[in-house]
């Protein structure tokens, strides 16, 4: 029983990291209708920035905040300088552009900071607390709490503020939004900036357990995309719940299902997607969109 609880809490914790990345993907998608495959790469860059500031003697929490602010600027700059060229065009081209961006950012991190592993300290102490016979790490619990807070903030931002309303309006119909006087360009930049800052949180949370490498987010990106498919693109809450389900299920499968084990547990969200797509094509929480010809 103790092992089970521990697996569930650890699963929720890793699921929370995927959730942060997935929320960033949902945010960009809600604003631009595009899936940003570079989101993982941008999170890696943010983690490297935090690590680099840490090396200059800045305290960890401050380093992470600085990297979040910088990531916001970088995200907005990428939207303005690069992605705006492709927005409103063929979605294929825009997606390929984000894939090019992923390659570029990964390559940039590799060139500047080398492809070797770096150790990033954790934001949370390495202590454990004992709950019902399970030794739960403070890191796991802290990660979960952090993500819940961010999710609530984001939900509030998107659903409860004028800014969120404007963002959603831009995503639904950029032309109408522009005609009603919304600054579409600035909103898109803000959407990308917030998404990048969210990715920075994911990067800071994931780097300690994975060690910092340019490709560390590749797997997390797959999990995040799986969470996005399962949760439905329109629901931040659904995406987080889906990411948690994935995190818990893969942790349980890795231990209790012999064939899967630790190296193949990335197949779990994939299998889950297949089951869900067959049963419920619009995702667990997504609304079915009705299209008129």
């Amino acid at each position: 029983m103790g092992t089970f609880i521990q697996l569930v809490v650890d699963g929720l914790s890793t699921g929370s990291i995927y959730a942060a990345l997935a929320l960033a993907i949902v945010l960009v998608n809600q604003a631009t209708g595009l899936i940003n495959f570079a989101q993982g790469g941008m999170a890696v860059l943010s983690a490297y920035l935090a690590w680099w500031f840490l090396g200059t003697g800045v305290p960890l929490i401050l380093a992470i905040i600085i990297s979040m602010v910088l990531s916001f600027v970088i995200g907005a700059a990428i939207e303005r300088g690069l992605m705006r060229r492709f927005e409103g065009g063929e979605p294929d081209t825009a997606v390929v552009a984000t894939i090019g961006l992923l390659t570029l950012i990964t390559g940039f991190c590799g060139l500047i900071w080398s492809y070797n592993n770096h150790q990033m300290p954790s934001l949370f102490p390495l202590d454990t607390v004992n709950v019902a016979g399970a030794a739960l790490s403070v890191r796991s619990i802290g990660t979960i709490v952090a993500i819940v807070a961010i999710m609530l903030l984001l939900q509030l931002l998107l659903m409860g503020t004028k800014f969120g309303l404007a963002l959603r309006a831009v995503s639904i119909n950029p032309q109408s939004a522009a005609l009603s006087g919304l600054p579409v360009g600035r909103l898109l930049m803000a959407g990308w900036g917030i998404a990048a800052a969210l990715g920075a949180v994911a990067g800071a949370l994931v780097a300690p357990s994975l060690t910092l490498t340019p490709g560390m987010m590749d797997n997390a990106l797959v999990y995040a995309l799986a969470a996005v498919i399962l949760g439905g693109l329109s629901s931040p809450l659904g995406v987080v719940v889906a990411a948690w389900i994935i995190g818990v299920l893969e942790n349980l499968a890795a231990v209790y299902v012999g064939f899967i084990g630790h190296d193949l547990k990335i197949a779990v969200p994939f299998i889950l997607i297949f089951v869900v797509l067959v049963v419920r094509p619009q995702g667990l929480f997504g609304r079915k969109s009705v299209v008129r010809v």
Partner: protein
Amino acid sequence: MSNTTRKTNTGAIAIANAEGITKRPWFTPVVIAVVAVVILALPLMLPELANQTLARVVVFAVAVLGLNVVMGYTGQVSLGQIFFLGLGAYVTAYGEEQGWHIVITFLLSMIIPGLVGLLIALPAARLGGLAIAMVTIALPIIGLPLAKRMGDFTGGSQGISASFGQAPDWTGLYKDQWQLYVVLIIGAAAFLLTRNLVRGKYGRAFAIVKGNENVAKSMGISPYNYKVLAFTVASIIGGLSGFLYMFVVEYTSPETMAFHHSITLLAAMVIGGAGSIVGSVIGGAYYVFVPQLTNAINPNATALLQGIILLVVLFVLPGGVVTLPRLIKRLTRRRGGGSRPGAPGAAPPPAVPTGPEGAAGLAKPTASTPSSSSTTASSDEGGASTRPPSDGTTPER
């Protein structure tokens, strides 16, 4: 949304125009003759290393061709093509190890990836938009540990090698020459079959699905069925490229289907030219040569340079390198006219194209209202309310 579809269709017009040029009566026979002579002569004259490199170009050109079927022609982003190459290579290696007849191995190297592709496409194509991209990105990432795990078939991390490219005695050829000839013949057959597929009935259906799924539905074309079909065909061609890969490289390991290879393959397709047969060949050349080049400049900067190349091509030549002649032509014709490089909606070429696709390219504006045709031809901004003119005319092609 209508903005999106309109741009897609002007892109289609541009592609149709490019193919119009190649459809001039003298063009095809001359090209075929020249290419045939060069291809027959080259393997005999080139040094061994050049032959091996060329053979690898053909291998990856076939892989890019498969990706083009699903992505260039049907508009479904796939990040998993390298998985099917790896699968085909493993099937080939296993068949050789078991001593199966080469024809059976050859067929299985296409059938098994085709079936796997079908199984993946059946659920993935149910979700619209970018779901196939989001699902297929997992293929290389799962494929790598899976290949390590299934060591009985794959040789685990060490990989598996098989050598069956020796030239038969009657040919009197060296191994590298024989390999290149075989790869060229099989590759040419694959290109010819695919060309016929994408120019025929199914290709037109693919184009309509790519252009506007709702229009396709209203015409009785099931986007779902055609997406599944395109993905399956792409998997089969991917498996074939895996067979050729094994024939030429003679060794495969889980590393063959690593994630970054998948991205490079996609970049190769886009840089060569999406939705273009010639672009697939250029893509194959990109896949083989550019990493070598960037490695030579600075091995640590390889990924960075590749990302920059991809983004620059998307900026300047959204249609890929294959559209470079058209861009040069347009720039020289409209010098100082403030033309935007890469803006879709290229003016029709001066000569009247004789081929069916060129004719379709010309027919599109006339079939629509005058206002919408002028928007299509002159700018890529605004004009969101105009119907995509080609949707109505595409079936007439």
